[in-house]
């Protein structure tokens, strides 16, 4: 009972605080927005409105706090502190998701915003029931009817899976080398892995165009070495997409594997050798299983963002590169079909939920072993 009252008090204070913050935002936006151009009168009007809202917010907080008994203050403050990250999640994840979900259930319209229905609160209860009765799953059905979508999902899965494996093949030896390097070198090596993040991701992907194009540095180099006589066509093919993805996501693969390998106690390998392992079998029987958690974490960190990747396939890929991120973009900006685009996004999210849950479970397991 006590904890419920504490919780309710926390909610009231939290709501009042949010109301205060939002009214400040509204006020500031009228200042900088078109409201400001309307002249002093309207600014004064919004100022009075803001003053009233702020006063309500402060008054509620003050009154609740004042009439709160001393022994309740501490748990309420605690609740507020614990609640802040949840509030963050609510505002930055759940609310946008609900909006996207709602749009995916709407119909496209030539209007602003480009979909119907919109919620008409002025019509009262009827407005709300009308709003919900007009929502339907049409767009999701459409995704199954046009084969473009499932082909794009499948192709994205394939590209994400292949590039995850490629990144692992490139990243593991690098991480292994780093973990085996002398201690005084490790910080520098780690720095070098993170260094590309200092440059914009977009610029780095653009520079690959300069390297991979037909007159690019790679072809010039190979031709001057006499390895090829005709320039290779790499740019605007899936190969370029794989190169771009492996390059971009390599640090996300290296770092977790490195951290797993670095923790590995060297005496374990000596013990394996002492008990009759060759160097190679010691690697397979000890190093590999003990770096498993790092490999899994790195693979998810590459796989999850790659699945929805948009920039790399659209810059480096060709017209034949089919990825769901690109389809989503075209649906939104070329087709201006927000409802279908939202449906594509919701399905993508549902597909991603599975690996994300698996990833979390892996982390959990790791923590149990470490603890």
């Amino acid at each position, binding site marked *: 009972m006590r904890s419920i009252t504490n919780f309710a008090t926390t909610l009231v204070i939290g709501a009042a605080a949010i109301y205060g913050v939002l009214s400040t935002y509204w006020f500031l936006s009228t200042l900088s927005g078109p409201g400001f151009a309307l002249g002093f009168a309207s600014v004064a009007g919004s100022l009075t409105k803001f003053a009233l809202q702020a006063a309500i917010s402060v008054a509620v907080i003050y009154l609740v706090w004042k009439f709160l008994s001393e022994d309740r203050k501490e748990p309420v403050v605690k609740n507020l502190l614990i609640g802040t990250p949840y509030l963050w999640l609510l505002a930055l994840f759940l609310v946008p998701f609900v909006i996207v979900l709602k749009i995916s259930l709407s119909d496209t319209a030539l209007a602003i915003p480009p979909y119907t229905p919109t919620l008409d609160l002025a019509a009262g209860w009827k407005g709300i029931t009308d709003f919900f009765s007009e929502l339907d799953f049409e767009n999701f059905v459409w995704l199954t009817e046009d084969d473009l979508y499932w082909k794009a999902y499948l192709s994205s899965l394939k590209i994400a899976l292949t590039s995850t494996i490629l990144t692992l093949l490139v990243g593991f030896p690098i991480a292994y080398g780093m973990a085996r390097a002398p201690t005084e070198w490790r910080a520098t090596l780690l720095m070098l892995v993170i260094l590309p993040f200092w440059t914009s991701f977009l610029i780095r992907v653009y520079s690959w165009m300069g390297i991979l194009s037909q007159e690019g540095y790679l072809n010039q180099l190979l031709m001057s070495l006499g390895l090829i006589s005709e320039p290779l066509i790499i740019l605007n093919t899936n190969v370029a997409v794989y190169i771009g993805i492996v390059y971009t996501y390599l640090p996300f693969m290296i770092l977790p594997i490195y951290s797993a390998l670095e923790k590995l*106690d060297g*005496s*374990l390998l*000596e*013990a*394996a*050798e*002492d*008990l*009759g*392992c*060759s160097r190679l*079998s010691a690697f397979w*029987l*000890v190093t590999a*299983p*003990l770096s*498993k958690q790092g490999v899994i974490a790195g693979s998810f960190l590459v796989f999850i963002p790659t699945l929805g990747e948009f920039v790399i396939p659209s810059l480096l890929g060709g017209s034949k590169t089919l990825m769901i991120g690109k389809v989503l973009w075209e649906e939104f900006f070329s087709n201006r079909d927000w409802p279908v685009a939202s449906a594509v996004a919701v399905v993508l999210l549902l597909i991603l939920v599975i690996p994300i849950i698996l990833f979390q479970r892996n982390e959990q397991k790791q923590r149990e*072993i470490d603890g």
Partner: protein
Amino acid sequence: MPQDVFAPWTDPNEKPIIQFQNVTKRFGDFTAIDDLTIDIYEREFFALLGPSGCGKTTMMRMLAGFETPTEGTILLSGQDIAPVPPNKRAVNMMFQSYALFPHLSIWDNIAFGLRRDKRPKDEVSQRVEEMLRLTRLEKFARRKPHQISGGQRQRVALARSLAKAPKLLLLDEPLGALDKKLRQETQFELMDIQEKTGTTFVIVTHDQEEAMTVASRVAVMDHGKIIQVATPADIYEAPNSTYVADFIGDVNLIRGKATGKDGDRLRIAWAEGQPEIVGTPNREFANGDTVHFAIRPEKVAISSEKPDSPNAIPGKVHDIAYLGNISTYHVELAGGQIIKAQTANNRRISRRSFTWEDNVWLSFTDTAGVLLET
């Protein structure tokens, strides 16, 4: 019929299982092992004792195959082991950190070495069960190393290294991570297992009590050299240098000069105005030679009246350390030197005979101390 004393090192016909022959190991400029020669015999429980950095761990790692000697040869059953890689040696090691594989169960940890030998399945499981019984770990076979206690982990490490029935088992500070009580229990367990299996054990430790308890012979090392190799009793009662005397147990060291002989007794002048110390040398000292007289505190008696003893020195009680079973008196002599004397507290609630600042007499027999050159 008296039981035969286990002392293969006194038998010239006995063949040693390990021979270090003029072995030197250098890491860059640093000499870890310095021209070292030693024989270790079968079924021995051999302890390498010394401060950290004395080279004892390097010696062990050379036996296991993780380091190769810079000079000299190491023979195992008469064969040079330098070219044999660690995974082909009939030597197993128990690591200081235990190095248990965290991803394998206790059972699989113990079976690890046996499986590498491609032994038949039922032989492996039979041997593992045997090891589990030996180390009383049957109940924990299915657990992972992080699910058992430190003492149990230590036993798993022992079981794993014994599973392949090695000719030689190396133990690197095997009890270092255990608390004192568990360590003492485990010491006896180790000795028991060593006797049961008949394996030769070489143990590295910096804990002199541990070395004295478990070992058949102790090698005291310093700066890559072995200073003395002897049975625990000999190391304690007949150290060959002040370094060994000081490293093992507690000792009073008195520096003096040989002044003359009375039969087999030697007189030592050690301080102005103090009576000369009479001791029994086991080597020749010429008059005027420097002599270090080493005597253990428990061999120094303390009394209030001047006793009738070959050596009696007056002093004043400076400090008393009460340890429950014994009390150590720090007695200050006229020259300011402190001599420790120990008495056993073999009666409960008896009034202590001496207290701070009391004038007392220290005495010891003429055979109680050791006379050392260095």
